[in-house]
């Protein structure tokens, strides 16, 4: 695809911003300061206005510096308010956000009415117009971005501690408060860099959305930061290309929607954390519990009557715990396939292997009951329900340890024999 000069600038700017935002956003997300970026973006406005009032120029550098100073001031005010007063962080963020922005609007309208001032150069800082990015902006962005990334790399270990366990960091003698300020300063730089590209409202999404998406895929900070930066950059590429090829499609919003789509996919499909994954594993567990219960029900009937060879009828088994025919059918089919249960018409009985497997479940149940009555001194009529749950959760190993700790009990609190552990 042939890109115009402007489109190339936008592409480069959006990609850089995406990577930067994704990197810093990871730390903000983990520190539960997702909305700090939002406040910093809003806080920058009066700085831009004051810089204009002082210098009278609309060239990027002074406006940028003004935004930076105001952002830093706003972030320090948030930190100080939370530290020194009873105001909570969410309120402090909301206060700085709205008051600084209000002040900025006052200054903006004031400037508009000055003879020299039409606000056209200033309001691109408000809503973000990626198309106004010029090469000078890109250079500023590249230099500041490199500084930010280098700082993150240099203080990576310290920032990691700050994100996960600031108390431990402090006990190691690290200056956690100064690190917190450093991280906030880095955040301010990224926010101010991004203002012009995506605007004051959307900047928070370039920080948080890629990080939130990356979080779903990994539990390691390093991987998360890289992935988040990658997602941010990718969203930047997608946004700028889409807006270059489709008329009247603003860049910033498309970037945000691109990373939001990645987030939704991640929330649904990421291995282990994904919702789909969770649903599947929940169903697998439920099915296993049903199978174990069926084995146990068959075993208990056999134990009660002493007749291990009789087939037990479908209605009887359904009645034990009120399960549907369909649920019983699925459990039975799986157990038959494993050779644990034999089936004749609509009746079931345990195979020798099935009896051994059922003994394992019953063993867990009864040993747990012994533990509850002996060690926790619960009355014996209060332990069954808990054991019903634990028989599916305990591992062989844990039960063996429990059994040893309890002195190899042979009888459960209700007077029934506890099956022995079988080797092989």
């Amino acid at each position: 695809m042939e890109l115009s000069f402007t489109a190339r600038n936008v592409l480069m700017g959006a990609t850089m911003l995406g990577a930067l935002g994704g990197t810093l956003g990871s730390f903000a997300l983990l520190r539960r300061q997702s909305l700090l970026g939002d406040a910093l973006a809003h806080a920058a406005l009066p700085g831009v206005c004051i810089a204009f009032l002082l210098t009278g120029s609309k060239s990027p550098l002074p406006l940028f510096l003004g935004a930076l100073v105001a952002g830093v001031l706003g972030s320090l005010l948030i930190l100080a308010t939370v530290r020194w007063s009873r105001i909570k962080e969410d309120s402090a963020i909301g206060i700085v956000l709205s008051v600084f922005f209000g002040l900025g609007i006052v200054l903006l309208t004031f400037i508009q009415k000055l003879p020299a001032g039409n606000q056209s150069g200033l309001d691109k800082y408000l809503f973000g117009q990626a198309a106004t990015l010029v090469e000078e902006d890109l250079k500023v962005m590249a230099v500041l971005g490199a500084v930010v990334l280098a700082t993150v790399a240099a203080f990576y270990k310290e920032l990691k501690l700050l994100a996960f366990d600031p108390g431990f960091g402090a006990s190691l003698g690290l200056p956690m408060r100064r690190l917190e300020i450093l991280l906030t300063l880095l955040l301010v730089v990224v926010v101010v860099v991004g203002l012009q590209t995506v605007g004051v409202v959307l900047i928070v999404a370039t920080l948080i959305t890629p990080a939130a998406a990356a979080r779903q895929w990994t539990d390691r900070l390093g991987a998360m930061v890289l992935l988040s930066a990658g997602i941010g950059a990718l969203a930047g590429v997608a946004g700028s290309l889409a807006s270059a090829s489709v008329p009247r499609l603003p860049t910033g919003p498309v970037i945000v929607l691109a990373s939001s789509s990645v987030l939704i996919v991640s929330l649904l499909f990421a291995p282990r954390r994904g919702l789909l994954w969770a649903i599947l594993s929940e169903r697998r567990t439920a099915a296993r519990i049903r199978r174990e219960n069926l084995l146990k029900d068959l075993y208990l009937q056999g134990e009660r009557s002493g007749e291990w060879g009789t087939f037990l009828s479908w209605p009887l088994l359904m009645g034990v715990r009120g399960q549907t025919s369909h649920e019983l059918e699925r459990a039975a089919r799986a157990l038959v396939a494993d050779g644990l249960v034999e089936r004749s018409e609509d009746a079931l009985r345990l195979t020798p292997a099935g009896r051994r497997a059922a003994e394992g479940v019953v063993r867990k149940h009864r040993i747990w009951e012994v533990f509850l009555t002996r060690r926790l001194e619960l009355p014996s009529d209060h332990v069954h329900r808990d054991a019903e749950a634990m028989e599916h959760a305990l591992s062989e190993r844990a039960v063996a340890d429990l059994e040893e700790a309890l002195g190899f009990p042979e009888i459960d609190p209700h007077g029934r024999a506890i099956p022995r552990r079988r080797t092989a």
Partner: protein
Amino acid sequence: MSPTLVILLVASFVAASCALVGSFLVLRKMALLGDAISHAVLPGIVIAFLLTGTRAALPMVLGAGALGVITVLLVELFNRSQRLREDASIGVVFPALFSLGVILISRYASQVDLDLDCVLYGEIAYSPWDTLTLAGRDIGPKALWVTGGVLLLNLALVLALYKELKISTFDAGLAATLGFSPVALHYLLMSAVSVTVVGSFESVGAILVVAMLVVPPATAYLLTERLERMLVLAVLLGVTSALAGYAAARWLDASIAGAMATVAGLLFLAALLFSPGHGLLARLLIQRRMGWRLSGQLLLLHLQKGGAVVPVSTLERRFGWSDTRLRRVLASLLRAGWVEMEGDGLRLTANGARVLETTGRAQLAHRL
């Protein structure tokens, strides 16, 4: 009605209704939900506009209200799924919805009069002239009706469910055991916030709504311990900000909403510094007083351990205090009659010994 009066009334209505629901947001640590809602409603407004083709008030308020509720639901959904924390949920939901709105505008509505400034940064100065007609008759400024209605709704909510809101805010567990669902109240409150934001921002702009939702309640929170007083104070502070902000804006010839937000911020700053109970100054004074008291107690304990008479000249080195500090501590103890001078030495009096007993020796010894 004069335009000035309309503006002042509208601003006061907004300030009061925001203060009522905002106080609960601040106490529940959900202050930023108002910010999120005020941005996320944009697509609702655009869709309502695209469907009806007009800028009539009702469809827009309905569209915005629907999106407000959707925002809250989405934030809750992400939050409940335990994959994202609340702050992150807010931070990803509202920019996505806002982006959707911006794209809808620039794709389908850019040629018409529905620009961002107007919708999101609505100008309160125009509110007197945007009048409502009912059955062909001009019944006055639309903003007055909408914000007045919202205020009545919020007032009714807080008065009717005051006890329930109070208990569920401070002790959700207790609320549940008393038999009213904190979840239902939460959603009710969130709906009230949505209605407030939507009803207000078209007349006064999103930023003033956010400011009024958070700043006056936070200011009131610094000034009192009681919920009733906090609500009343928040309303008063909000209305004061509105009135003073209007005056400032007229004087500077600048944005009215911006000036109101700025005044609210100044009031907050004043409370932050000078609040008698929670201000930074009060805290500093209390800390210093505690410091002096501790020094006095340390000195008493030292005298008690040191036996009969302890020479004053040894004290300076013992505690590492400056000369002036030592002199101040000594003066206060002498004045209280807890120690007495004997030549160049210092001795604990019977009174002083009693004071030591009652303040808990073990505690003091631990600090030494």
